[in-house]
């Protein structure tokens, strides 16, 4: 019942956003002012919503994928007792609400409200099974790291407000020219810090893999399809700022690229099926930031969309596998599931191909667009990007092969109830699979078909400012078709090779007795020890500083002084009262001395 309501609501909003999309498509975007959130002489924040091309795309993704995942959840979560089941859907809907708030807000404050709202929901959903304290820690980690990003976001907003006196997109983007270079650099860097938090980029990415503690549909919706793309949305939204920020763009590109590679390398050696997908998500997000960094905003958004499709698909597929395996997540104990769960297998395979970037699947188009732009900016980017692509292909097919090919390596009772998942699971899988296959066709690059890139055309008004700016600057050199062909060929070919290698290596995978990782492999298996690093350079010092303040500064230092005064008074009292010796002689003597003092002061000073 609850599930139906929950899903129905989202379906409704999906239909509405379709309607909104049609409206926008027919060219009338709209900003709706509801009421004044804050309205004082010094600060005016309206509770305004804005529906334009960018937000409508995201609306579709969120509500669409969201709806599918709701449906999926109705079956996936049915073991939960009804109370928790209801709670789960409540959280999920709350998440969709905040996400919509985020993308529909017409100023940075409303966006921030959604921004933190989704953080909250991710916190709640990661820690959904709150009996387990590891999950709670993961949830806490996610929230705190997001908070770090949020601080950057806030400061950026303050900066904007203090310079321009407003946080409305329209006003801000209209008055960008009033900002000095330092302002823009600072603002964009801070915004980017916010993005790294939300979208799991270096240095704040470590929460995302841990976030897999949550239920798998949550990982699919929040930690793959929607929330983590908020950062991309935000930067795409304020693209004009970033286009003008000469300093920031390379930073974004490099960080994105580094993240893509780092995460890819880690993914190579993970055995937890969800962990692999998590790192692949991080890596894909890295690509998106690369795209943003090189000014390929459309490409980034495009990749967001396609990624939403196939990554959601992959996660849900993984979920269906885990479901079948009775909660088992270690790929080493899987294998040969092909014959038990055909639909899952098929859809999963499609997803893998899509993400590996094999034409004409969706992943190919979006990733290729980004890579092309990267090449245009700086060939090195492209080389590294392709390297990452190869790794992607490799680990995805490693995953696929270990899971579905070869012999089943699990226990017997697992083998017993291996079964295909119910319709509520398979239908969303199929739909997403279709999208993953065809989704790329909205953005066919010009080399194949002039004007084939409908998405670009659609989003054109959003990025017009940036494009004009670049034109004005005059360094917008397009690649010749031939180079583009070559680039594509290289990347696709590489991908195929990597794919084949993975296939050959893992389709006959057997569990070795005790495979002790060594050297680089060990490092990768342990995720480059980044968590440990953070722990030792940030968490530990903060903790010990707190202890120091609490035990030393507070008790001995400040409070010590305060109490010390009291003790001093007591001590002084005990000493002074000894003057009162009881002897008249002493008394008179002291009196005389006092009198002498007065005499001296009066007569000789």
């Amino acid at each position, binding site marked *: 019942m609850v599930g139906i309501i929950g899903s129905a609501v989202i379906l409704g909003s999906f239909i509405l956003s379709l309607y909104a999309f049609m409206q926008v498509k027919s060219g009338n975007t709209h900003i709706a002012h509801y009421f004044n959130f804050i309205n004082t002489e010094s600060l005016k924040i309206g509770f305004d919503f804005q529906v334009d091309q960018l937000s409508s795309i995201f609306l579709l993704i969120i509500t669409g994928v969201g709806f599918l995942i709701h449906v999926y959840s109705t079956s996936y979560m049915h073991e939960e007792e009804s109370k928790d089941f209801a709670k789960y859907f409540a959280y999920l809907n709350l998440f969709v609400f905040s996400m919509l708030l985020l993308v529909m807000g017409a100023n940075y404050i409303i966006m921030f409200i959604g921004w933190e709202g989704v953080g909250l929901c991710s916190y709640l959903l990661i820690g959904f099974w709150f009996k387990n304290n590891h999950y709670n820690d993961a949830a806490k980690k996610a929230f705190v790291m997001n908070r770090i990003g949020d601080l950057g976001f806030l400061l950026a907003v303050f900066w904007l407000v203090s310079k321009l006196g407003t946080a409305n997109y329209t006003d801000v983007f209209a008055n960008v020219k009033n900002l000095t270079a330092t302002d823009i650099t600072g603002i964009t860097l801070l915004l980017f810090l916010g993005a790294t938090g939300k979208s799991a980029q270096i240095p704040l990415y470590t929460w995302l893999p841990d976030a897999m503690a949550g239920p798998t549909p949550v990982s699919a919706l929040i930690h793959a399809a929607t929330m983590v793309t908020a950062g991309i949305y935000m930067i795409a939204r304020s693209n004009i700022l970033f286009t003008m920020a000469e300093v920031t763009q390379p930073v974004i590109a490099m960080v994105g690229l580094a993240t893509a590679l780092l995460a890819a390398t880690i993914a190579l050696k993970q055995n937890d099926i969800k962990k692999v997908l998590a790192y692949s998500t991080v890596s894909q997000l890295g690509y998106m930031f690369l795209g943003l960094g090189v000014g390929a905003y459309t490409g980034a958004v495009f990749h967001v969309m396609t990624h939403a499709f196939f990554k959601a698909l992959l996660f849900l597929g993984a979920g269906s596998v885990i479901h079948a395996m009775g909660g088992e997540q270690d790929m080493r104990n899987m294998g040969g599931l092909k014959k038990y769960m055909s639909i899952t297998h098929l859809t999963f395979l499609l997803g893998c191909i899509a993400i590996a970037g094999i034409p004409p699947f969706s992943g190919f188009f979006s990733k290729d667009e980004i890579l092309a732009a990267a090449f245009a900016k700086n060939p090195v980017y492209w080389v590294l990007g392709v390297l990452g692509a190869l790794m992607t292909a490799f680990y995805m097919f490693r995953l696929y092969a270990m899971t579905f090919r070869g012999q089943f390596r699990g226990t017997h009772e697992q083998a017993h109830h291996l079964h295909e998942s119910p319709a509520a699971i398979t239908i969303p899988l199929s739909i997403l699979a279709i999208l993953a296959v065809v989704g790329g066709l909205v953005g066919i690059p010009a080399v194949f078909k002039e004007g084939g890139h409908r998405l670009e055309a659609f989003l054109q008004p959003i990025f017009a400012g940036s494009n004009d700016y670049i034109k004005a600057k005059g360094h917008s050199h397009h690649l010749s078709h031939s180079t583009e062909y070559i680039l594509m060929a290289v990347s696709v070919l590489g991908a195929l090779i990597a794919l084949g290698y993975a296939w050959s290596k893992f389709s006959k995978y057997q569990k070795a007795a005790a495979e002790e990782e060594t050297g680089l492999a060990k490092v990768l298996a342990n995720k480059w020890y980044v968590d440990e690093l953070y722990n030792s350079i940030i968490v530990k010092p903060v903790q010990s500083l707190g202890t120091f303040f609490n035990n030393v500064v507070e008790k001995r230092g400040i409070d010590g002084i305060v109490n010390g005064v009291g003790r001093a008074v007591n001590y002084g009292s005990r000493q002074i009262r000894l003057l009162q010796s009881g002897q008249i*002689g*002493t008394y008179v*003597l002291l009196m005389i001395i006092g*009198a*002498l003092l007065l*005499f*001296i002061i009066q*007569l*000789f000073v």
Partner: protein
Amino acid sequence: MSVTQILFWFLSLLAIGGAVMVVASRNPVHSILYLIITFFAISGHYVLLNAQFLAIVNIIVYAGAIMVLFLFVVMLMNLNAESEPPSKSKYLLYSGVIAGCSLLLIMVAAIKKSDAASQLTQLKDGEVGLISNLGKTLFTDFVFPFEISSVLFLSAMIGAVIISKKETGTETENL
């Protein structure tokens, strides 16, 4: 140096010497006798200042009544040199002497640099000190203090009585 000056110096030395002995001598009885000497010297000064009335009163009241009363009390308690054994710690003694001397020093030093010091005082002549004048002043201008000092005497009298009256009962605490 005129007779008066000689007298002045003699009396002054007598007074100071007596005073010192009052403080110095161990035996209370001696102290009292020295004090009487001092008082006589002071009375002599009064005469010298032509204040006969005060001179007489001083001798009658002080040297006569008061000191006799003292003497009587001392005799009653038969105090003697042993009644006040020298205390172990001498610091109070020394510091006391030092303090007193420095007080003297400071005052004298101050007076030395004051112009008032040069002012003269009138010795032999000057009628103010005579009983007739004083009596007149006392019973005209000073009638109120004169009357009110009776209150002083009354209270002193009552005090003396209730203090020295024998109280019945044992030692009490905390009243």
